[in-house]
């Protein structure tokens, strides 16, 4: 089976994010970059699928030179090869432009199933998998916690608010992974060594026949609005402090 997993490199969840002075983006200095956690579930499911049905896993990622590290991480987990789309026109791409670039790369290779994370943890938009499916003319099953492939069909479970959807799709298709789908493996030391020799093609948008088309633009980034400072209840006696908080909640805030 020809399996594709799309990954994005994002700032570590604990990274301190600062806005550039002109509000156009974030300061990248000092940030630790990692594979977006939901993409790890996608890579893991891709590897499990390969282990069950045979075939190979191709990793596709977009970003500047540092992105290669994340592609290598996926290769170290067990994927066979990578495509790294490195084009400045795509560095701050919106979901549509991102999905178009992924679609252009994936069109050029055989693909029976494509995995993405359900969203990246930086912009949180959660659109790329669905747009990718639409651009490739494929069915999509998004934000799933269970996948069973049998022959050329797959059944998946998609949790929604207070319910679950059982969804069936034919292959090829796009799947986006939610936490709970699997437990991503760690790269082993031999895996890391092998990954260094695995082939990764670096491509520009033009190599893929792609003109980058941005639909949305970021007008401004700013820190979230500050709130006025709250009231800290002082004192050493826990009983007195407890009584005071109850009094404030009852008499002033009137919420209990």
């Amino acid at each position, binding site marked *: 089976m020809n399996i594709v997993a799309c990954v994005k490199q994002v700032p570590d*969840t604990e990274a301190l*994010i600062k806005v550039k002075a002109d509000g156009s983006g974030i300061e990248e200095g000092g940030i630790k970059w990692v594979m977006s956690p939901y993409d790890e579930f996608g890579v893991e499911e891709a590897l499990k699928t390969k282990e069950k049905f045979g075939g190979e896993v191709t990793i596709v990622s977009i970003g500047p030179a540092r992105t290669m590290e994340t592609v290598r991480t996926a290769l170290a987990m067990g994927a066979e090869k990578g495509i790294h789309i490195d084009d400045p026109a795509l560095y701050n791409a*919106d979901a*549509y432009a991102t999905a178009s670039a992924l679609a252009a790369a994936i069109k050029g290779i055989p693909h029976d199933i494509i995995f993405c994370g359900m969203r990246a*943890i930086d*912009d*949180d*938009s*959660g*659109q790329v*998998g*669905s*747009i990718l*499916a*639409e651009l490739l003319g494929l*069915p*999509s*099953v*998004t*934000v799933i916690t269970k996948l069973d492939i049998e022959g050329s069909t797959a059944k998946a479970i*998609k*949790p*929604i*608010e*207070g*319910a*679950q*959807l*059982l*969804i*069936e799709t034919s292959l090829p*298709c796009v799947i986006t992974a939610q*936490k*709970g789908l699997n437990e991503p493996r760690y790269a082993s030391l031999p895996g890391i060594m092998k990954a260094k020799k695995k082939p990764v093609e670096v491509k520009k948008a033009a190599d893929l026949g792609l003109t980058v088309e941005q*639909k*949305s*633009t*970021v*007008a*401004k*980034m*700013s820190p*979230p*609005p500050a*709130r006025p*400072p*709250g*009231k*800290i*209840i002082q004192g050493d006696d*826990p*009983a007195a*402090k*407890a*009584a005071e*908080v*109850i009094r404030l*909640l009852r008499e002033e*805030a009137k*919420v209990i």
Partner: protein
Amino acid sequence: MRELIVYAEQKGGMLVDVSLEMMAQAVQLSHRINGTISAILIGDSCGYNADELICHGAHKVYLVEDKRLALYQNAATAKVVADILSVQSPEIVLIGGTSVGTDVAARVAARLRTGLTAHCIDLSIEEIDGEDQLVQTVPGWGGRMSVKIVCPQRRPQIVTIRPGVMEKGDPDPTRRGDLIPVMPVLTEDDFGARTLAFVEEKTKAGSLDDARIIVSGGFGLYGSGGFRLIEALADVVNGEIAGTRPAVDHGWIEEERLIGQSGKNVRPRLFISIGTSGAMHYTTGFSRAQVVVAIDRNASAPIFDVAHIGIVGDLNRIIPCIIKELTKEALPERTRS
């Protein structure tokens, strides 16, 4: 007249809350652009929900009834919505930032080759380059950033709205609107993936979405018997329990009660956060709570920057005191009844 269209999502035959929250938002925006409001209602037989949309401000309801759409079908629904939008050419389209809304919105935007901004927490109209543009605010980087996005060239401007961040309006039963039946043009090929079943989950505890009081705990409860204190306090204030990522990871609380970026976005009257340091990806989940109380032993924890009332001290001593304080006054009432 410019048109604003709301995708009215339903679940189990009822409109979901965010559908009505978006109607209120559409009413506000329509005043700014002097527009009309329409809703798209899709299902098997669901016309009975049209009146509620009209009472909440819809001038028109496009009603699509088709047996094949009794369950949510992503590709087919996206085609039906995109077909209506292509004919109507609205200025703005609002879709709920639910599991279903997020799924359908991306496919609709891709079909129309327009932009989509996901999980907006605020919308406004501003004149940019001589044109009214929808300025779409989203939290980025787990709430550590506020990002304003515009879609300058393409129309419609499509956004999904985070559930629970906007208020529903009051229904006005005197409002009148038009019901416009639309015949969907769907072949088998338009379906793609097929939803076979919708299985409602019975959660054992109450819902966080409508909770008036939420007591939430974090890693600071380590060594305090986990969530024992949280459960006891929630019990006396008649609140729901919730927690941070570390609390979920320690198995103290279920994943569905996780607050924050990758969990729930709640809007209670009172949110009590106990033993939580206040990471931004957590605090973003209760930024709309009316009153936030934080209790933690670390005086410099960032949770105190977002709390209205803070108590610094030993959780094992303070929480039992609070419980005692609450029960001692409640007791006489109980004996009377």
